[in-house]
């Protein structure tokens, strides 16, 4: 009951947020210059041709009515059809989701594998001896994906190294080929994650290390390994869980820049192409699904807080 009381307001807030996102994305798409008629006809878009295309896709209706139709369709599980292919966009998102999930998992695994140990080591080492980790954190946080990705693409397209640029192969067809294609974008995407996890872990560990109960544990003569395992990690984990879940939500929502750069056919590339082509149904569905994923993951993080720290859940009673 306590968990339900804790979650209910969050679910209500999530639904309101999703509704808000749906209004924003719907309006934003219709406010930005250029439409599908421009893309389809190029310069040859006469007023008559524009009107014909608008009528064909129901864009001649008032915006409020268009939004209402879209919302009703959404509630029935119909996310609309692509203007280019006239096929349901949900099918495309489902087909591409495994690609984005794989990319996100690679990035997350790399980020955790390097970020957590380096963060803990740096945090326990103190300010004077954590220089290397601080440097890695600063570099990782400040190099944009587009710069790092472009450098990697240049290097790996000029020299015939084992890893490949583009040419996605599904894991089920060729696991090795798949890894050869996915590692570079995964690594590109993970660099920011490494820095994020490292810095957050380091700060959290350093904060916990100054707490009285750590001093007490030291005074009791507990072994440093036990102090870190039993007292530091558990107490430092809440901010780390927050950033990791947020980061994972960001990855799953579509790592647009990396997918576009490396021509990885995930949901980010699909949504981005939809935006360039003013293919409204794709962008609306893409942004909405991203919002749902992001919000859901944040709610899961809230549940995790309650599990890690009972005081969080108890707060709901008050």
């Amino acid at each position, binding site marked *: 009951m306590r968990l339900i009381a804790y979650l209910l307001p969050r679910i209500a807030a999530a639904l309101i947020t999703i509704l808000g996102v749906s209004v924003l994305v719907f309006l934003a798409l219709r406010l930005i210059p250029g439409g599908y008629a421009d893309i*389809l006809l190029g310069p040859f*878009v006469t007023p008559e041709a524009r009107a014909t295309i608008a009528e064909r896709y129901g864009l001649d209706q008032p915006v409020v009515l268009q939004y209402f139709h879209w919302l009703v369709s959404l509630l029935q599980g119909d996310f609309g059809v692509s203007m280019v292919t006239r096929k349901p966009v949900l099918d495309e998102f489902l087909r591409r989701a495994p690609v984005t999930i794989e990319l996100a998992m690679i990035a997350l695994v790399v980020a955790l594998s390097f970020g957590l140990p380096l963060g803990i080591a740096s945090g326990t080492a103190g300010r004077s001896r954590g220089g290397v980790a601080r440097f890695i954190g600063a570099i990782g946080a400040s190099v944009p994906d587009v710069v790092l990705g472009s450098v990697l693409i240049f290097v790996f397209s000029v020299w015939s190294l084992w890893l490949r640029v583009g040419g996605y192969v599904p894991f089920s067809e060729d696991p090795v080929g798949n890894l050869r294609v996915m590692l570079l974008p995964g690594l590109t995407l993970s660099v920011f994650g490494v820095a994020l996890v490292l810095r957050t872990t380091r700060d959290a560990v350093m904060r916990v290390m100054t707490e009285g109960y750590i001093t007490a544990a030291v005074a009791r003569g507990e072994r440093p390994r036990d102090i870190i395992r039993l007292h530091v990690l558990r107490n430092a984990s809440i901010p780390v869980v927050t950033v990791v879940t947020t980061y994972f939500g960001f990855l799953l929502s579509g790592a647009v820049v990396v997918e576009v750069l490396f021509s990885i056919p995930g949901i980010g590339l699909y949504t981005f192409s939809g935006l360039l082509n003013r293919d409204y149904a794709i962008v609306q569905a893409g942004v909405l699904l991203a919002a749902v994923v992001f919000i859901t993951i944040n709610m899961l993080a809230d549940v995790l807080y309650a599990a890690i720290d009972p005081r969080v859940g108890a707060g709901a009673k008050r």
Partner: protein
Amino acid sequence: MNIRSSINKAAATAALGLGLAATCVLPSLAQDKTITWGKPAEITGFDVHVAGTVAAWEMYQMIYETLLAADENLEVQGALAESWEQTSPTSYVFKIRDGAAFSNGRAVTAADVIGSLERIKDPETASYWSHQLGDIAKMEAIDDHTVSVELAAPHPAFLPALAHITAAILPIEELKAGTFDPTSQLLGSGPFMVEEHKQDESWTLVRNPHYWRKGYPLADRLEAPIIPDESARMAALRDGRIDFTTFANPDAPQMLSKEDNIESKPQQTTNYYRIDVNALSDKSAFKDKKVRQAMNLALDRQAINDFVFAGTSDVDYPVPAAFGKDACRSLDTYAMPREERIEKAKALLKEAGNENPEVGLIAASSNPVLGRIAQVVQQSLGDAGFEVEIESIPTAEYLQRVFTDGDFDMSTSWLAGYTDPSMVIAWWNPEFAVWNQVFQENVPELSAALDEVKTMQGGAERDAKLSEICAMIDDGANLLSLVSKTDYVVYRDDQVDVTVAEKSGSSNTFQYISEFKPLD
């Protein structure tokens, strides 16, 4: 004994069966030869009569056919029509090729030809090609394979207009029956048909078993992964994942030329890069004709060729250089030394009372070449006193601002030259073109001359008229040609044997795709 005998019989039957199966299956596997095309961009729509982008045309050309085609001398030749006859200045009779069939097996008929041309002319279709076909007064099916077309007025560009992919012949019977939707499907009589399409990811085409040219295409399958990034296409060529691709600028082919087994073939086209100038907006300095003329004189077309295209292109003219006409070359814009042109441009700006015009230059971000051209334009106009600010914006925004809102000073793009000199310059008449009405000044004398040249047969008289038109176009300085657009086909010579026309007039880079031969 009986049991042993039965086992032996069963074994023999199984062996025979396996042998037969192997005989049937293995050769087909062995012959399943694939070529892989690194396609730079996804199509923008399925309707061949509507889409106005090269990314779409390239794919249509694999699947659809037109009645006529243009050869590399820009002469019209038969395609779906094996022959044709012009019986009067306004009358044509086309004989459809025996054996031509759509990929569903149904023969192409006169009704398909008539229905397709009617569909293009129908305003409901919203086809931009309607005007280029001229005014079709009547079409009749003389028999299943013969079509007569009567134009309301002479229009020599009618035949070249039929050679452009936008005039493709659709299966009208299926369209009317509702079994074929041209806005979401591709069904043609060309060398390939679609097996699978993953949007923004890849196309898989397989041979059309009913293609009229026996023994072609030489490849059984055509895989087309979509690889927009230039570096990724280069990498794919290097490691052999794709057999061929195209580039819009010579940098990539030059870098790849150092690789073993990678070759490139430049294809000259009638297309050229251009600048659109806004002569109608009160907000634009170019509303003053003298400022436009100064800009035209100050443009350094040779510098664009040198710096953007490493000298591999050529200065081009409103009547494209590829047609070999001398229509525009003696004009000051092209013939006068640059120093003198700059002085003349400065004098014009002084006369206009605007010695340092501040103007914006839009370059759509989707094509990096346009941004590079804009930078050279910025530099060269600066020599005459212009202050140019470059804007790089998404394609959809560019299209709306330039062609619908007229909210710009000048913008870079390119223009398809087609296969007859009268076709491209027809766009200088905004009443005919429509697409440039928001920025192109309507000059009645020029429009009349353009209407007249459309009715003239090729020859000295028409060439003289073209020169007269070119001078008027240059005087208006409203829509300017820059340099020729060369396409570069780059391929693995150890994986595929390609045939590329040296010159193309219909943006048909892969005109000979059916002759691309996969190598073992």
